[in-house]
């Protein structure tokens, strides 16, 4: 795998391989020195055109735990504000020869476009409202860790589907892994023809009791000003997931950051059925697996098996983790 641009490019086998590798990295976080030398000497550039705390820091942690050098480039306060084009910015940064560029932009397809301008591996950390593949992968990882398999799983994605890159990646990833997906939200916030992605579309939570997993999306305040919904109060009364609507056997997920009292009631966020912190923990592991895959494990046949990092104590076995 040269780049990670879209979930569409990944088959089930690849997603499973990434999850397996992420699992093999889990043990690293429990060590006193949380590092393996797998990507020592490699440079990972974080290129973020949108503010992001958790995704950026989780990529940064992932790269550092693999011993890569990390450079963060945020668009605000940079040449971008002086009017530099995406192409010029990328080519300027690419002149420093990063091995991978993790890129978030507000524009669909931008990470794909960037592959034309640099030899570095490109990891899409969110491109407009198109895709956010590492989020979908960490969600699959989280469910797999909890349930073993996603086959036959019924997942409801609830909220602002229209503006959600998470939803688009997640629908595809869950289906690839054998789950069936229903999206549910205000009719104004579900795009026309969204069912082409293969999911069901509903506008009410009435049938949500059939779901095994409820995945709430973030509801942004500015959507009201654009008249997508009449008020957050009404949104919450119709779509908020609370302990009354969430059944005792249903799991709850959310990509964060949570608007407590809007899409989720506080009690379910902290409740026993919530996987939200598991998702956060999975974020670093899955991003380690992705960076490892695009930088070290391009060809599955020649790549070291995921047992590698677990077998190392962080000082030996470097050659095994550092293929030429």
């Amino acid at each position: 795998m040269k780049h990670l641009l879209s979930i569409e490019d990944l088959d089930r086998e690849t997603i499973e391989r990434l999850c397996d590798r992420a699992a093999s990295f889990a043990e690293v976080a429990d060590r006193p020195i949380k590092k393996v030398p797998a990507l020592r000497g490699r440079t990972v550039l974080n290129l973020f055109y949108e503010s992001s705390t958790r995704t950026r820091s989780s990529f940064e942690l992932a790269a550092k735990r693999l011993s890569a050098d990390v450079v963060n480039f945020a668009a605000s306060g940079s040449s971008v504000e002086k009017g530099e084009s995406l192409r010029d910015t990328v080519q300027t940064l690419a002149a420093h020869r990063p091995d991978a560029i993790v890129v978030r932009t507000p524009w669909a397809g931008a990470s794909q476009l960037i592959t034309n301008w640099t030899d570095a591996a490109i990891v899409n950390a969110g491109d407009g409202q198109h895709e956010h593949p590492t989020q979908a992968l960490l969600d699959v990882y989280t469910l797999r860790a909890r349930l073993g398999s996603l086959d036959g799983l019924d997942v409801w994605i609830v909220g602002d589907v229209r503006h959600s890159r998470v939803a688009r990646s997640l629908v595809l990833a869950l289906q690839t892994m054998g789950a069936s997906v229903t999206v549910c939200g205000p009719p104004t916030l579900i795009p026309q023809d969204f069912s082409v992605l293969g999911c069901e579309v509903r506008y009410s939570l009435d049938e949500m009791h059939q779901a095994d997993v409820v995945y709430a999306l973030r509801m942004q305040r500015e959507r009201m000003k654009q008249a997508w919904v009449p008020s957050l109060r009404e949104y919450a009364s119709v779509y908020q997931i609370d302990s009354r609507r969430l059944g005792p056997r249903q799991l709850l997920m959310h990509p964060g950051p949570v608007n407590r009292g809007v899409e989720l009631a506080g009690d379910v966020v902290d409740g026993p059925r919530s996987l939200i912190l598991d998702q956060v923990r999975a974020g670093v592991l899955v991003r380690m697996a992705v960076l490892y895959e695009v930088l070290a494990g391009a060809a599955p046949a020649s790549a070291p098996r995921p047992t590698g990092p677990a077998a190392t104590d962080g000082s030996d076995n470097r050659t095994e983790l550092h293929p030429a």
Partner: protein
Amino acid sequence: MSLEPLVWAGGAGGSLPTDADLLIHHAHVLDPQAGIDAPWDVLVRGGEIVEIGAPGSVEAGPGVEVVDGHGLHLFPGFVDPHVHLRTPGQEHKEDLESGTRAAAAGGYCAVVAMPNTSPVVDSASLLGSLRATASRMARIPVGFTAAITRGLEGDELTEMAELRAAGAVGFTDDGKPVTSAGVLRKAIQYQRLCGGVIALHEEDPTLSAGGSMREGAVSARLGIAGIPWLSESTMVARDAAIAGHEGGRVHFQHLSCVASIDALREAKARGFRVSGEASPHHLLLTHDAVRGLDTSMKMNPPLGFEEDRQALIDGLRDGTIECIATDHAPHAPDEKAVPFEQAPMGATGLEAAFAAVYSELVRPGILSLATVIERLTAGAALMELETPTIVVGERANLALVDLEREWTVGENGYESRSDNCCFHGRRFHGRVLMTVADGGVAYRERSFAVHAA
């Protein structure tokens, strides 16, 4: 009022020759207006068609270039009622010379330029200087339209009578709709005084705002904000009603959906003075072409569904849509080398329009060649200009085409200053070998040889 709306460097006192002496023999001459569809010899002397005779019968005479037309087709030159020449103000995209050179390379003998330049063509003085520039630079005759509203703001009418006297072919806020029904109604009323067709870009911004492509299955998958088709059709229906109420003459630009064509058809059935155009890209491409996020596929109105494309073809066939217009919209490479949502709307089209339509609609038998030729010249009459025709005594306006010649769009670059052609890289049949505009040879394909007698 001026009755000489077209201007170019071949006009009175211009630098380009307009007195071609040319014999094209044995070419298949197809001119639906003149009712010709057979091999003929056509002799041009001093830029005028002086003789049309049986193949091999016409003598060239001294000093006449002889073109062997065996296996070639000779059409009346095409007329495009809708192009963007980007002058004044955006000459890095196109100028009057490069844009008209591109038109000539596509077989066009006249084009009509849109006023959404920088500054907007909304005053007689600006129009005057633009026409003066065209009289030095334009390689084929150009007509200029003026804005309906000052600065394309949609609020105040331009000085339409003065603009008309200064040579405006018609009026349009193309690129933007006239959002206010009241303002448009006043413009159509004022047309009774000044004349000139009112051409409309139809879009309801409250429905289209923020959109970069047609709303539908592809936009849903890509997560790109969509423009619903009813953004166009509701405005076509509204403005057809206003035109009908006022008895005005209105032309609908670049139609792109079934409902707009239905609205146009209905307005015509009621006897309203309305007309419509279709672009080669809406006739050949659908929103599926946007999947790869190629910014050359981003235009306004956006590419539609397959049923829209079929309805456009049907409309063109039955005459509901009178003409093919390219909406040639050049943008500099840097401006298009950006993420799709950031890119400006528009694609170039003049150089490949005939080949595209011929290859995709005529060769498979969907439209007749005669229909396509008629629709490529009909823009003239819609803009109240003379339709080019191959008749003795007329000025020579000709396109000589090799229908069997295959070529790849963009293989040798473009005559246009910009390369954002939505057909780039496509392989088509039908190469324009020579274009004659108002009696002068405006274009020769570089590999195409002519022989002096």
